[in-house]
């Protein structure tokens, strides 16, 4: 992974002191509430329902074991002993004290962590494929490009007061595990006919109250011009994006209003003045950054191990976990392991300090001391030799991190909802519990197969409900929580937005409604057909009928 040099370190150290001074001036009454709001948001600090919330960046979801240990320490020393992983692959602490935040940041900076631009109307943490660099079908590793974007976007003087937040995702594979089509900018690493590396560039995707799939602005951008092209897009957006209504301020609204052709013309015309200039990334720099993401020293004889098959034969629970929570690796004899942060009756994405330390230790012993966070709110140990899988599983199971549910109904993406978030209209965590209680039977879950369930507690869509195979959106009706259900969404390479099933259902009826939907699916599915494919084949009508027929 990328390791800071003294310049990178100096930047975060200086930023800590700058923020410390801003906090001091705010507490001394020298900065207005409104002005400090903008400053603290740019540094990841929200003031929430219960307490402030600090969001720490995990750049493109990659962290070291040492960093995860320090996150555990911070959660113990300054919070209530746990953290929450988000769909931007960052981690949030829900109970820090505003005046202690500078000290937290100073501690984080010692291990090259920070909270820069994890909120506010600026360029947010770039996200990528959680199997980057290891997936057998990958074209090119996206992480060096994420790091180049991280550096360019960090404290960019021109883009600190954008119309609205700005999110970039990068993929290096035909399979899209980064939801790149619902980002402000989606970048796909590709090679052209001449074999040169570049990006297919999408713009104007996003969720929130106006979900839109991104549109292609360029088929092939030479890789070295990545930064100049991003700068052109951002400059046009900064100048032309709406400032009068924050709900219409994202770039997707601008692209829709202008039309993709007109927007493309503006960007391309401006880019003409930038390309080939100072912003062009020299090959030496690409090589320098890429070297940080070189392959680990894998063992060439890892596949010769026979113990894995023995354990798979003899231990059914291990076999189930292996099938569900481990994934192919480009190196024979290795697997990627998903650490499930979706236990029975636990808040999705939450992790205790002890669990963080357990995962850090497993990473040190078995996975080259690195951990990844996924936008689906789990962790990944990406490089585990097959001979070590049983040992890894035992430790994970002991700490409630091995629920074999990855990709299944209970592997839900869920925002914290009304319990924590001051934007939320409805609770989400109680509904997640209700779903867990109703769908406890593992055999049934496995029979249902791959289902992406995403839930948000308000229209801002932090839980990505529009792109869930099943989406649940909490709404407030006269002080009561109600839930609107959508079917048929996807954030993958076949991205689509879910369609509303019908009128919202009451809080107590959510799991029961899901049950009716899934029973219908089981009845009408073709052999081997996934839930999403059934919905795409038959539409929402049969599901709607099953859910609402009785009442009507």
């Amino acid at each position, binding site marked *: 992974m990328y390791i800071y040099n003294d310049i990178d370190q*100096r930047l975060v150290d200086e930023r800590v002191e700058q923020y410390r*001074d*801003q906090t001091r001036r705010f507490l001394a009454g020298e900065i207005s509430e409104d002005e400090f709001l903008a400053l603290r948001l740019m540094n990841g600090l929200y003031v929430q329902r219960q307490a402030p919330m600090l969001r720490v960046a995990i750049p493109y979801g990659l962290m070291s074991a040492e960093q995860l240990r320090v996150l555990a320490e911070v959660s113990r020393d300054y919070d209530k002993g746990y953290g929450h992983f988000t769909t931007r692959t960052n981690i949030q602490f829900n109970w820090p004290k505003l005046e202690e935040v500078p000290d937290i940041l100073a501690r984080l900076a010692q291990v090259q962590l920070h909270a820069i631009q994890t909120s506010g109307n600026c360029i947010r943490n770039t996200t990528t494929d959680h199997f980057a660099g290891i997936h057998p079908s990958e074209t090119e590793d996206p992480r060096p490009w994420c790091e180049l974007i991280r550096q*360019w976007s960090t404290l*960019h003087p021109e*883009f600190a007061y954008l119309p609205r937040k700005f999110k970039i995702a990068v993929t290096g594979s035909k399979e899209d595990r980064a939801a790149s089509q619902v980002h402000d900018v989606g970048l796909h690493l590709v090679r052209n006919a001449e074999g040169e590396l570049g990006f297919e560039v999408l713009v104007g995707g996003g969720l929130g109250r106006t979900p839109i799939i991104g549109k292609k602005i360029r088929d092939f951008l030479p890789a070295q011009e990545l930064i100049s092209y991003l700068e052109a897009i951002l*400059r046009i957006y*900064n*100048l032309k994006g709406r400032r009068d209504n924050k709900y219409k301020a994202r770039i997707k609204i601008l692209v829709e209003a202008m039309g993709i052709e007109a927007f493309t013309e503006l960007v391309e015309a401006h880019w003409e003045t930038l390309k080939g200039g100072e912003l062009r990334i020299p090959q030496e720099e690409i090589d320098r950054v890429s070297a940080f993401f070189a392959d680990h020293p894998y063992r060439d004889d890892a596949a010769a191990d026979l113990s894995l098959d023995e354990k798979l034969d003899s231990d059914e629970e291990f076999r189930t976990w292996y099938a569900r929570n481990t994934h192919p690796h480009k190196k024979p004899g290795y697997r990627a392991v998903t650490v499930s942060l979706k236990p029975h009756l636990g808040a999705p994405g939450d992790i205790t300090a002890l669990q963080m330390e357990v995962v850090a230790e497993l990473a040190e012993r078995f996975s080259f001391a690195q951990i990844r966070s996924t936008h689906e709110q789990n962790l990944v140990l990406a490089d585990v030799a097959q001979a070590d899988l049983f040992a890894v599983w035992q430790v994970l199971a002991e700490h409630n991190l091995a629920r074999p549910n990855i990709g299944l109904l209970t592997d839900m993406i869920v925002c914290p909802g009304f319990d924590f978030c001051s934007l939320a209209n409805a609770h989400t965590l109680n509904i997640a519990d209700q779903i867990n209680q109703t769908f406890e039977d593992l055999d049934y879950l496995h029979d249902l197969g791959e289902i992406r369930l995403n839930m948000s507690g308000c229209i801002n869509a932090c839980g990505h409900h529009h792109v869930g195979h099943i989406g649940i959106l909490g709404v407030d009706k006269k002080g009561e929580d109600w839930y609107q259900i959508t079917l048929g969404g996807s954030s993958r390479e076949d991205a689509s937005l879910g369609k509303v099933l019908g009128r919202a259902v009451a809080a107590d009826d959510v799991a029961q409604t899901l049950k009716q939907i899934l029973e219908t699916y089981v009845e009408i599915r073709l052999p081997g057909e996934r839930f999403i494919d059934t919905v795409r084949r038959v539409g929402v009508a049969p599901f709607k009928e099953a859910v609402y027929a009785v009442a009507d």
Partner: protein
Amino acid sequence: MPLLIDRQISLGQEDYRFIPFGEYLELGEDDQVKVNAVQVSGDDPLEQLLPLAEQFAAIAVEFPVLRDGRGFSIARELRIAGFTGQIRAVGETSRDKLALLERCGFNAVYLKDESFKPEHLNAYTEMSVRYQGAVDDPRPIYRQRMLS
């Protein structure tokens, strides 16, 4: 209202009389040539300003509200277009924007803050690392490193 020019408090006479760019466009040619400074906002047609910029000695860029960051890009565009005169930030400026403004090409700032203190000039030096190429130094970090 202190005026900073090149990081210094300016106590001298105002050199310019800023005419809103919209008004300037309405003037006849005889009157236009007498104008040496205009004030623009994000709502003005930037594509009309850029080719005319050279004839002004100073351009004031308005920040109408705290969260409106269009001015940063307006200044960048003016400098990219080759404008070498004074670019002055007016409106909702603040101590914590000073360094950003300078990096984007502003060399003058009207600070709305009445309680301006000389230590506010620390804003210019608290961050010494510049990852991006900008007006102060067009080299992104990778080119700074190559030459250092």
